């Protein structure tokens, strides 16, 4: 279940994508998502999407990530998107592209004494429906793949520092920006640990008779308690210990922590920060 989160475990590497500052990668991802969202209003204009996905694919190639790994983590999202396809196609109003049906389904001797005809449809697929499906599917996919790439190639410490730097202007409004940074770090660090713990716990409960795959819904929900209660307890115990450890190591001694990774932007960062918006914006306005 938790395997489908768009969070990869950082794998050390030396590729240009690894070397980019975390805030560069964050900004690019935010930019691409926003652009695709805006491009949604221009029906059947694919420029922004083609450009964004090409750049993302290029980044995936440069970063030498394992496509099998990404695919395994994406499967559920793809399935969910596919399930959503008929609904978004059928339920969006607008100019008609094609009408399917109505189809009449005949059931002879249903319940042994009656012939029943159930009319299905007509299903009207609109242009808006098709566009909605394509554009939102693309935005989801982009965000998912982008955050996978981000977490696979960026150490959580750098990511936390990046988040903190990007949010820093908000400090003026009293937002606890440093805490957001630490929260990011702790979540990224402990999500894989919790996943592992959940898997162990599931095995342990199966070993003493639990069966998570059969039975009524209520029975299954009740069994889920045997996972959730210890998991939450374990997480709370871990959190208490972690906070002791952070206290012991002097968390919050000063407000101005040294940045370990997010130093000045390099040439590569500037290049990316300039090139990506220019290429995608051009693609949005000029192409297609």
């Amino acid at each position, binding site marked *: 279940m938790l395997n489908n989160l768009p969070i990869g475990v950082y794998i050390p590497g030396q590729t240009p994508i690894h070397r980019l500052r975390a805030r560069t990668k964050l900004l690019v991802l935010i930019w691409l998502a926003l652009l695709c969202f805006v491009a949604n209003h221009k029906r059947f204009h694919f420029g922004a999407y083609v450009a964004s996905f090409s750049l993302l694919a290029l980044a995936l190639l440069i970063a030498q990530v394992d496509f099998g790994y990404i695919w395994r983590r994406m499967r559920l999202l793809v399935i969910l998107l596919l399930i959503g396809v008929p609904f978004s196609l059928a339920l969006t109003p607008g100019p008609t592209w094609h009408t399917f049906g109505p189809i009449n389904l005949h059931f002879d001797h249903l319940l042994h004494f009656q012939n029943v005809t159930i009319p299905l449809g007509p299903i009207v697929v609109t242009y808006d429906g098709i566009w909605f499906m394509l554009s939102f599917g693309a935005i989801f996919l982009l965000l998912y793949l982008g955050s996978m790439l981000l977490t696979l190639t960026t150490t959580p410490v750098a990511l936390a520092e990046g988040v903190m730097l990007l949010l820093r202007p908000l400090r003026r409004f009293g937002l606890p920006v440093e805490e957001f940074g630490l929260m990011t770090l702790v979540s990224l660090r402990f999500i894989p640990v919790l996943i592992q713990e959940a898997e162990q716990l599931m095995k342990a409960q199966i070993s003493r008779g639990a069966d998570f795959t059969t039975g009524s819904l209520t029975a299954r929900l009740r069994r889920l308690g045997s996972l959730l209660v210890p998991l939450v307890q374990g997480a709370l115990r871990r959190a208490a210990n972690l906070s002791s450890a952070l206290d012991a190591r002097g968390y919050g001694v000063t407000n101005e922590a*040294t940045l370990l990774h997010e130093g000045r932007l390099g040439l590569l960062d500037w290049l990316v920060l300039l090139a990506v918006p220019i290429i995608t914006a051009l693609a949005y306005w000029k192409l297609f």
Partner: protein
Amino acid sequence: MEHLPEQHTHQAGASNHTRSRVAASLPLIALEDVTFRYPAVASRHERTASQRPALEKINVTFQRGEYIALLGHNGSGKSTLARLLNGLYLPTAGRLLVGGLDTRHPVARRRIRELVGMIFSDPDNQIIATLVEDDVAWGLAARGWPLARIRERVTEALTAVGMEQMRGRPPYELSGGQRQRLAIAGVLALAPDCIVADEPTALLDPQARGEMVALLQQLCQRQGITIIHTTHLLEEAALADRILILDAGQIVLSGTPTEIFSDLERLQALRLVVPQMALLGERLRALGIPVPVNALTPESLIAALEQARGAASQQEPPGREALQ
């Protein structure tokens, strides 16, 4: 008292080896009538219905450079005591001074946490970063040290625990023993006067356990760091300078390993696992063979036995001497 901590923080950034910043005449840590009672609700560790204090009127001092083993079975109060030593918990009554600073004083507490570093039994709960060197650097970065000085310190600390080869590795690739050494490096980077290790070997296998104790010994001997090591295993305490045994929140026994290991029945009564080597030594003494109480490794015991055998053969008639 007020100005001390700030001043020292600046000094820490200024020079490299700044241990012994506290007047050397004072004991490093002094507990004066320390009582600690868990709050009624949040008593995760000691869950006794009667709400007896987890620690009661503890009086003890720890000197600079000492290796102290705090022994006790589960629930004896040893972890609670460990957590009082750097102000994670504050005494309910009495006071605890670290280098003359009272842990109840919030400003002093920052300084105390630099003087007294702490590691726990599950290193996973204190490794915060996902690269070895980032984790060691974290405490220094949180204190706003300049990057160049952080790098220097990180290298020193990783070298001291024998992990400099692994600085670019993610912690999940490390073994349990290596993770625990990483946790120690994270504390060492702050150049503490004292390291409190709370059950550092509880989750390790025997070999890693031995390496951990050897590392703590080495830090004590080479760098003069005071080590306070809590454990429920007597054999880990055998090399300590001083052993304190806790039971029901009180120090019931204290002394050198030789003193402690000479009354095995008492140790068993305190629900401690008496090492087989200690039992063997006691048996041998009962059979009239003079092996020292502190001969607790197979090698030292055999050495003592060889001497005893030598002595036994010397007592033979003088005619033998001629042959040699």
